[in-house]
């Protein structure tokens, strides 16, 4: 697609942004912020998901075991979302938007609903693609949370630090994703 960087320039750009974030603050991670946004929504509906607790390391505790782990670190971020990691992920939306405005690759109307490889295999009806994207989203975020990170946090940030978790994650992800892609989309 026009406006897209080739692998070499793209690789350098990716490498530099991952390096720059570690240099300035800390490695990139995305999937945790889905939990934080869930927590914000959940807490605004129920109101008693997170409470102040001076005994917790973060100062906050939650009846939900996951938000409560590591001294209530996630619980604190749910009530104080105006922090680096959450704003970082929100800003990614802005960045991609700016890239479209500045002659980046532009998806046409059909592509914005479903990629060509989907349409060739399953037709142009939008409903099927939306359901697949939704189910894919459930699997991707459930898997990320069980793994403790996603493609950004484990694969890119992890492997650059030679973290064993990065290699384990990449092995598991590709071992499942490649056969799954063959089965779902065919080999051409």
């Amino acid at each position, binding site marked *: 697609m026009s406006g897209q960087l080739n692998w070499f320039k793209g690789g350098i750009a990716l490498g530099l942004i991952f390096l720059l974030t570690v240099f300035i603050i800390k490695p990139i991670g995305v999937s945790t912020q889905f939990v934080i946004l869930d927590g914000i929504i959940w807490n605004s509906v129920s109101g008693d998901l997170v409470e102040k607790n001076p005994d917790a390391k973060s100062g906050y505790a939650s009846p939900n075991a996951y938000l409560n782990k590591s001294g209530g670190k996630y619980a604190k971020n749910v009530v104080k979302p105006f922090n680096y990691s959450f704003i970082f992920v929100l800003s990614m939306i802005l960045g991609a938007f700016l890239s479209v405005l500045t002659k980046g690759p532009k998806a046409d109307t059909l592509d914005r609903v479903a990629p060509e490889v989907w349409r060739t295999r399953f037709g142009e009806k939008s409903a099927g693609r939306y359901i697949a994207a939704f189910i894919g989203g459930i699997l*991707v975020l459930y898997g990320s949370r069980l793994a403790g990170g996603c493609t950004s946090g484990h694969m890119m940030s992890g492997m650059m630090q030679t973290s064993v978790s990065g290699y384990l994650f990449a092995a598991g992800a590709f071992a499942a994703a490649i056969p799954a892609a063959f089965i779902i989309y065919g080999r051409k």
Partner: protein
Amino acid sequence: MEIISAICLGALFGFVLHRVGASNPQNIINMLRLTDLHLIRAILLGIALASAILFIGLTLGFFDPSHLSVKTSYWGVIIGGVILGVGWALAGYCPGTGVAALGEGRKDAIFFIAGGLVGAWLYMVTYSAFKGMFLLDNILGGKVTLAQTPKESYAVLLDKIPGIIPALIVALVLGVIAWRLPGKTSAD
């Protein structure tokens, strides 16, 4: 200050993901069914470059080791990677690229993000069932790297040699793989 960094770095990351073509599910799916490898070449080159400069920087002392953040290795990393892999192939998005695709105006990304929020929530409510199971048991001591870093709390697999040597060898191997893989993309 932290918030300004978050906005700038997050926007830059979203911009780069879009420019590389990673927010286009067509490119992800074709990478996974091995018909267009430009993205995996970019990813491998990015990791290799970032890792090499990171370890050179750590050795020379111009990188702050407290910025490193190695994730824990446990069985769930692999299993979670497998679950993520299936959803990744189906949707063509991972958490980071899905967020960038939202900024690009892709409608299927809205459904992916919605599914992601459901998936992360499902993990929040099922997490307590995993506690105490083998899934969360550490592998090789948990926070473990292949190459030695200045951060002494991390376990190291190759603890007899200076970290820069294995790190540069791994980076070189990843770089050579990126270089030698066949490409094929309209932007090449």
